[in-house]
C-alpha cells in the first residue's frame, strides 16, 4: 500500500491511503485523520475523511506548507491501525413500502425479486459509513448486496422527501432533508439524520456500523415519521 501526499491548492494537501472502497482502507483513513488532528493541533483548519483519502486544510498565511507536509508524513508513518476501535453500531428503523419508497417495486422487479426479498437483502448486512458529505448529515453507506445495486436515475428528482432511504450503485443512504436527488428510493427512516439543535447533531459518524431494521407503518408514524 503506497501513501501519497499531494498539494492540491493554496490551502490544502491531499493524503491518499488507497484506491478502493474497502474496510481496511477506511480504517486507515480514520486512524490517519485522528493522527493528523493530533499532530497539527490548532494549525489544522479542517479535514474531510472519505473512502480512501483525507484532504488536510491549513491556513497558508499562518503555517508553512512543507512543515505541515512533514508533520503529516511523520504522523502517517507512525500510524498503527486499530481496526474499527472507535466504531459504534447504530440501528436505523425503516418503513419499506411503495408509499414511502417510490422505487421499491420497480427496483425489485428489475432484480427479479419480490419486495420482501429486496427488503431482506437490504436489512441483512451491517453497512460501514464511508463518508459524510453532499449535504449536512448525508452518510454514504456501503456496500449493498450486488443483487439490489442499481444505477442512479437518468433524470434526478427535483425533491426527494426527508428521511428517504435510497440506493445508488452499491451505496445506500438516508436523505437527511428534502433535496434534489437521483438515488432509487425504497423506504423512509423516521430518525433525524441531521438536527442542528441536537448533541451530537448526527446519529452516525464515518467508520460507524449501520444496520437497517424493517418497521411497519404504525411504528414509523409513532416514531415521528411523516408520509407526504
Amino acid at each position, binding site marked *: 500500500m503506497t501513501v501519497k501526499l499531494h498539494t492540491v491548492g493554496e490551502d490544502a494537501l491531499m493524503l491518499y491511503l488507497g484506491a478502493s472502497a474497502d474496510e481496511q482502507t477506511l480504517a486507515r483513513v480514520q486512524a490517519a485523520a485522528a493522527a493528523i488532528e493530533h499532530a497539527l493541533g490548532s494549525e489544522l483548519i479542517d479535514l474531510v475523511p*472519505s473512502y480512501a483519502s483525507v484532504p488536510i486544510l491549513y491556513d497558508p498565511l499562518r503555517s508553512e506548507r512543507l512543515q505541515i507536509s512533514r508533520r503529516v508524513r511523520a504522523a502517517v508513518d507512525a500510524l498503527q491501525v486499530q481496526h474499527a476501535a472507535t466504531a459504534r453500531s447504530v440501528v436505523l428503523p425503516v418503513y419499506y413500502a411503495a408509499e414511502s419508497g417510490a422505487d421499491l417495486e420497480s427496483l425489485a422487479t428489475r432484480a427479479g425479486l419480490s419486495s420482501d426479498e429486496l427488503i431482506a437483502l437490504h436489512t441483512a448486512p451491517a453497512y460501514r459509513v464511508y463518508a459524510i*458529505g453532499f449535504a449536512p448529515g448525508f452518510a454514504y453507506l456501503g456496500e449493498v448486496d450486488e443483487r439490489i445495486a442499481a444505477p442512479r436515475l437518468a433524470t434526478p428528482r427535483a425533491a426527494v422527501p426527508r428521511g428517504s432511504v435510497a440506493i445508488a450503485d452499491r451505496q445506500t443512504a438516508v436523505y437527511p432533508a428534502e433535496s434534489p436527488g437521483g438515488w432509487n428510493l425504497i423506504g423512509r427512516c423516521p430518525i433525524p439524520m441531521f438536527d442542528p439543535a441536537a448533541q451530537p447533531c448526527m446519529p452516525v459518524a464515518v467508520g460507524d456500523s449501520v444496520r437497517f431494521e424493517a418497521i411497519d407503518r404504525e411504528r414509523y408514524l409513532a416514531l415521528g415519521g411523516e408520509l407526504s
Partner: protein
Amino acid sequence: MNMAVVQAGMLSLLQDSGRRGQHRLGLTTGGPLDGEAFHYCNALLQNPAGSTAIEVSVGGLQLSAQVDTYICLTGAAMPLAINGEEKALWEVHPVRAGDTLQIGFARSGCRAYLGVADGFQITPSFGSTATVVREHIGGLCGDRLQIGDQLPCPAVTTRKRLYLPVQEQPRYQNTLTVRVIPGYQQRHFNRIEQRRFFGGRFRVSERCDRMGYRLEGPVVGCDMAGILSEGICFGAIQVPPDGQPIVLLNDRQTIGGYPKIGAALSLDAARLSQLTTGASVYFAPITVRTAHRALDLAQRFWRQRPLRERQP
C-alpha cells in the same frame, strides 16, 4: 434596534467570514464570495474583521433604518442612495432612525457588501452566521433575506467617516485570468488537454452561483470519468464528462466524484464571483510557492492601503 428589510433584492445573504471545522458533518464553508470587498467593508467601518454584513448579489436591496448608526457599501458598483440621495461606495455614511437605504442594480461586478457599525448581531450556528441556503443554515433562519426581516444592529453614535480613495478601489471587468495551482487528478489530463484548458477562452455560463461557476469553452478531456468520492478544497476546478470546467466556490459540496485539473487561487476565485454570464475567463498555471507569495502580498497590501478620513 434593527434594520428592516423593505425589498430583499435578487439574493441578499447575511455572511461572516465563513464556517470552519464542520466539513465532517457535511457542512460547507459559506462566507463572502469576494473576501477583499468584505474585508474593506468591515475595515472602513472600524469593525472587528469578519463582522456580519449583507452580501448583495446583483442588487435591489432596500432597508429601513430603525436606529442611528453608520453604514458602508463595498464591492460591485451598485448605486447607493440614502433617502433618495446618491452616496459613494467604499465610504462610511451616517444613517438615522427612519432613513431609507436603497441599493440599485450593479453597473459592474455583481456582489456588494453592506455593513453596519459593529456588524449585524446574529446568533451563530455551528460557529458562524454565514448563510448557506442549500443547507438551511446560518443567517436569520437559514434563508436569504425576505421582506419584513428585522436585522438587529446596535445604535452607534460616533465613528470615523473613513473612505477608500477612488484610485485605490478595485475595478470589476468582464475579462479575467484565473491563476490555477495544478493538482489532484492533473496527470489524468494529457498535454493536449492541458493546453486546451490553459490556452482556451471560456465563457461564464448561466449556471453560476455560490456553489460554483460553470464555464463554457473548449472541451477538456480526461482519461477517467469519475473518481472515488473525495474531499473538495476551495477553488477546485472539476471537469465532468462533458469537458466543461466548474470552479467550486464557498458553498461547494464537501465531497464529490468528478476529476479535477487544479485549484484556483482564492484571490482570483473572488474576482470570478464578480463576473456574470457571458464574461470571458482564461486560466494560467502557477506553482504553489507563487500562490503563497501572491497571498502574502495581498495581505500586506490590504493592511497598508491607506484609509482616508472624510472631514465634515
